[in-house]
C-alpha cells in the first residue's frame, strides 16, 4: 500500500453522502487537521476547493499541446500537399500553403484537438501514476461504490472531530 512506509498511523473515516463529506472536510480543516487524501466513487464538485488543493495546471498543458498539434498539422499539410508533392485537387491553388489553407482547416482543427486531448490524458495518467498494471491505491473497495473516505494522519482529538463531522465508520490503519 502506498502509505505503509509512513511512520505516523493513518485514520480513515467513511462517509455515506457527498454533501456530508464536503461539510466534514471543511470542519476537519477548520479544526486544524491536515487531510492527506479523499477517496470518492465519483468526482465531487467543490471538493478540491474544500480541501484547499492547489489549482491544476493541466489547462496550461492542454493549451501547449494544442499549439503543438496545430504546428504539426501545418507542417504536415504544407509538406505533403504543397512542398513535397503539390497536388491539384478540384483546381484549388497549390502554389503556397496560405492560398489552400481553407481546405486544411478541418485537418488543423482535428490535429489540434487530437494532440490536446490525447497528450492531456497521458499527462494525467502519468502524473497520477495510473500506468497499466499499477496497483490499486484505494484502501477500501467500498469507495468505488457508495462510500466516501477521508484519510489523514492520526492526531490528538481527531477521532472526536471525525465523529462530530458525521463519519459513519472510523478505522485506524
Amino acid at each position, binding site marked *: 500500500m502506498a502509505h505503509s512506509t509512513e511512520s505516523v498511523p493513518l485514520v480513515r473515516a467513511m462517509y455515506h453522502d457527498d454533501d456530508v463529506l464536503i461539510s466534514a472536510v471543511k470542519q476537519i480543516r477548520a479544526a486544524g487537521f491536515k487531510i492527506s487524501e479523499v477517496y470518492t466513487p465519483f468526482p465531487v*464538485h467543490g471538493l478540491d476547493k474544500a480541501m484547499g488543493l492547489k489549482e491544476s495546471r493541466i489547462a496550461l498543458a492542454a493549451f501547449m499541446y494544442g499549439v503543438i498539434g496545430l504546428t504539426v498539422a501545418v507542417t504536415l499539410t504544407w509538406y505533403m500537399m504543397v512542398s513535397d508533392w503539390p497536388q491539384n485537387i478540384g483546381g484549388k491553388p497549390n502554389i503556397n500553403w496560405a492560398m489552400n489553407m481553407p481546405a486544411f*482547416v478541418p485537418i488543423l482543427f482535428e490535429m489540434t484537438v487530437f494532440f490536446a486531448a490525447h497528450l492531456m490524458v497521458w499527462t494525467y495518467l502519468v502524473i497520477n501514476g495510473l500506468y497499466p498494471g499499477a496497483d490499486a491505491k484505494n484502501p477500501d473497495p467500498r469507495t468505488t461504490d457508495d462510500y466516501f473516505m477521508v484519510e489523514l494522519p492520526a492526531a490528538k482529538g481527531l477521532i472526536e472531530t471525525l465523529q462530530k463531522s458525521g463519519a459513519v465508520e472510523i478505522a485506524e490503519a
Partner: protein
Amino acid sequence: MFVFTSKMKLLAGSLTLVGLVFLLIGFNTDYSSHADSGDHGAVAQGHAEEAHAVEAHADEAHAVEAHAAEAHATETHAAEAHATEAHAAEAHAAEAHADEAHATEVHAAEAHASDHGHDLSANRPWAAFLVNSIFFLGIGIGTLFFLAIQYAAQVGWSVGLLRVFEAVSMFVGIPILGILFLIATGGMHMHHLWHWMAEGIMDPASPNYDSLIAGKEAYLNVPFFALRTLAYLVIWAGAAYLLRRNSLREDALPQGQNMFFTQRKLAATFIVLYAVTSSTSAWDWVMSVDPHWFSTLFGWYTFAGMFVTAMTVLNLLVMYLRLNNHLPWINENHQHDLSKFMFAFSVFWTYLWFSQYMLIWYSNIPEEVTYYLPRFKGEYKPLFVAMVAMNFLLPILVLMSRDAKRIFGFIGLASVFVLAGHWIDHYIMIMPGAVGYSFGFGFAELGGILFYSGLFLWVTLSQLAKVPLRLKNHPMLTESERFQQ
C-alpha cells in the same frame, strides 16, 4: 428588489429619442450623392459574368479615373456597372449619356444586376434598420430559447437567474414589429431591400422579369411573407409571455411542482416550433435579401450568431446586477457558466460560418460563390476578415482560461468583441445584397443601434423591476443557490 431608477429611465428614454432623431436624419439623407463607390460594379448575384466584373473592378476603376469626363457618365449608372459595360461606356465616352449606357448594360451580359436599373443606395437606411432589427432580435430570441431550454431540460443551476432571462426575452416582439414595418414599406415599394419585392420581377412581360425569382413566387410573395412574420411574432412573443406569466403565478401558489411540468411542456413545444421558425425566419428576413442565392446552413448560422449575442448580453446584464448587489444568491460559478456558453457558442458560430464558407469555396459553383465575391474579393473584405477575428480569435483567446470566465474585466472585453463582431456579421449578411457597394456607417446605422438599445434597456429594466428577482417556489431554487463547480 430591483428598482428602475429615474436615472436609468432617462438614459433609456434619451437613447430611444436620440436614436429616433438619428433614424429620421438617416432616412432623409440622399445616399446616392455620395455613393462614390458605385462604379465598382453591382454585387454579383446570378451570373459568372458578374463575377468577372467584380474581380476586374480594380483595374477598371483606375481606367475610369484616368478619364475624368467619362467617369461622370459611368458613375451615374454606377450600381449596375459590369466589366463589359464599363469598357463599352469608355469607348463611347464623349457621347455616353444615360440611355445609351443603360442599353449597353442591359445587353452587356444579360446578367441581373441587383435591382434592375434602380439605384441600390436608396435602400441603405432601410437595410441599416433591418441590420439593427435582426441584431437586437437576436438578444431577445436567443434568451427566450435559452429560457425554454432551462425548463425543458429541468436545469438546476440557472433557476436563480430565470427572472433575468424572462425580462430579456420579453423584448423579443419589438424588433419583429420593426421588421413588420420594413415589410409594409417594402410592400408599398418605398424601398426594395428585399429585391424580390421589386415591381414586375415576377411578371414575364416586364423588363424587370427575373425567371429565377419568379420561380420562387409561391414562397416569396408579400402576403405570405408578412403572414410568416406575424406567425413568428405570435409564436415567439406568445411563448415569452406565457413562460413569464406562469413563472409569476408560481410565486403565488404553494410550494411544490405546481407549474414545473406546465412550464416544461410549454418550453418543449416552443423549442419544437422554434426549430422550424428559426430557420425559416432567417431565410425570410436575411437570406431573401440575396434572392438568387441559397444556403441550407443559413438558418443555423444566423441562429448561432443570435444565440451568442444573447449569451453575451445576459452575461453583461447579470454582471451588472451582481455588481449592484441585486443578485446576492448568484456567485461566480453561475457567471462562469454563462461565460462558457459565450465561449462555446463563439466556437459554434465559427464552425457554422466555416462550414458554409468552405463548401462554397471548394465547389466554386457560380450561383453559390457569387455570395462571397463582394464579401471576400470586394470592398467588404476588411470588414469580413475583421468580423471573423472578432467573433472567433479574440473571444477564444480572452475567454479560454478558467479564471478569465469569472473576472469581470475579461468578460467585458470579450463582450465588446463579440457584440461588435456579430453586429458586423449581420451587417455583412444584409448590406451587399441590399445596397451593393454603397455602404457606410452613418446616422441610419447609429440611429438604429441607439433606438433599439434604448428600447431594450427600457423593456428589460422595467420588467426586472416589476417583481422580485428571486423566484419563490421553483423546486430547484436551492440547487441553484448551492451551485458550484
